[in-house]
């Protein structure tokens, strides 16, 4: 099942704009290799789940996959053939806002070639340009 919050304060939110670059969550923090987003926008819960499934299936239960973002934002829409007005539509799906630099997924416990192949498959499921990065051990 796709990710979504367990508890929220408000059911609906305004759309907003994804501006700027990732000031945090932009380094490989848990695994050895990561997939970094190079664009700004929304990632739906389904896309995140598709990426997670692609990585875990490829790794055959070897290593560990970390999902570094979470869909906190509800997106509402109006039913088909409905006239405008009469209030905001109902929440349809959940999205995560990502900025250039956001680390989307991380992989640990496998060597670089396997991690690169796994994260390439994940990158194909993502709607934005991504790149493969390694953990920085030194300064």
């Amino acid at each position, binding site marked *: 099942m796709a990710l979504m919050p367990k508890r929220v304060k408000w059911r609906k939110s305004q759309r907003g704009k994804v501006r700027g670059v990732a000031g945090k969550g932009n380094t490989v923090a848990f695994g050895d290799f990561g997939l970094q987003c190079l664009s700004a926008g929304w990632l739906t*819960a389904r896309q995140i789940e598709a990426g997670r499934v692609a990585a875990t299936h490829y790794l055959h239960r070897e290593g560990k996959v970390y999902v570094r973002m979470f869909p906190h934002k509800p997106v509402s829409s109006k039913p088909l053939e409905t006239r405008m007005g009469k209030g905001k539509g109902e929440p349809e799906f959940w999205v995560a806002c990502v900025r250039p630099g956001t680390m989307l997924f991380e992989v640990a416990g496998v060597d670089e070639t396997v991690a690169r192949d796994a994260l390439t498959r994940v990158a194909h499921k993502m709607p934005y340009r991504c790149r493969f990065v390694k953990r920085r051990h030194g300064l």
Partner: protein
Amino acid sequence: METLTIKAEPRMTSGTRISRALRAAGRLPAVIYGHGEAPESVSLAHHEVEVALAHGARTLQVDLNGGVKPYLIKQVQYDHLGTNLIHLDLSRVDLHERVKVRVGIELRGVPKGIHDGGVLDQQMAQIEVECVVTEIPDTFHPVVTHLALGDSLLVKDLQLPPGVVAMADSNERIATVRLLAVEVVAPVAPIEGEAATTAEPERIGRIRKDDEEVAAETKKPEAKKAEAKKPDAKK
């Protein structure tokens, strides 16, 4: 560890635009502080710092106003993608001084527990150590081939060079070989509409008005209009 000499120029002005202009001109903004003296804003040659960091330098010999002194690289700031250097923090040090620094841990080898279905989980990627400035280790490379399923590599198992003391608790875990939790896949029900996505999270905090009531109120005028139109249609 290598120590390179880099020429620094004092910066009289500061700010975002000035720093950006410096970077465009191939200079790297930096600050020097420590030892109870006033901080100094300087700029260094960007490429030389990059080369020094690529060689694992922890200290730099900086030529500032004609005097060459050693400085400890305290912090390195990168841009949002983690590729380009944007700022450097240098700390004044004495070469015989003991300092606390964070050193990376890169595990070597494949644990034997992996063949029994385990996964190597590294909990600690860096460790804080205290040592003399001139003897800061680059990276620790502990071998983990002997770890069986359920075994852990602890801080006390690290072979530290003489004079280097780990600041972390000796029983703290660096890595563990453990069984991966089995993912239980629930039986997939046939999707009708968007049943999975329409499930709503619980609401917290003060709720001003129930949404159902709001929806009912908005529908009322429509229903009234429809009722009013019905007799006309029959006629």
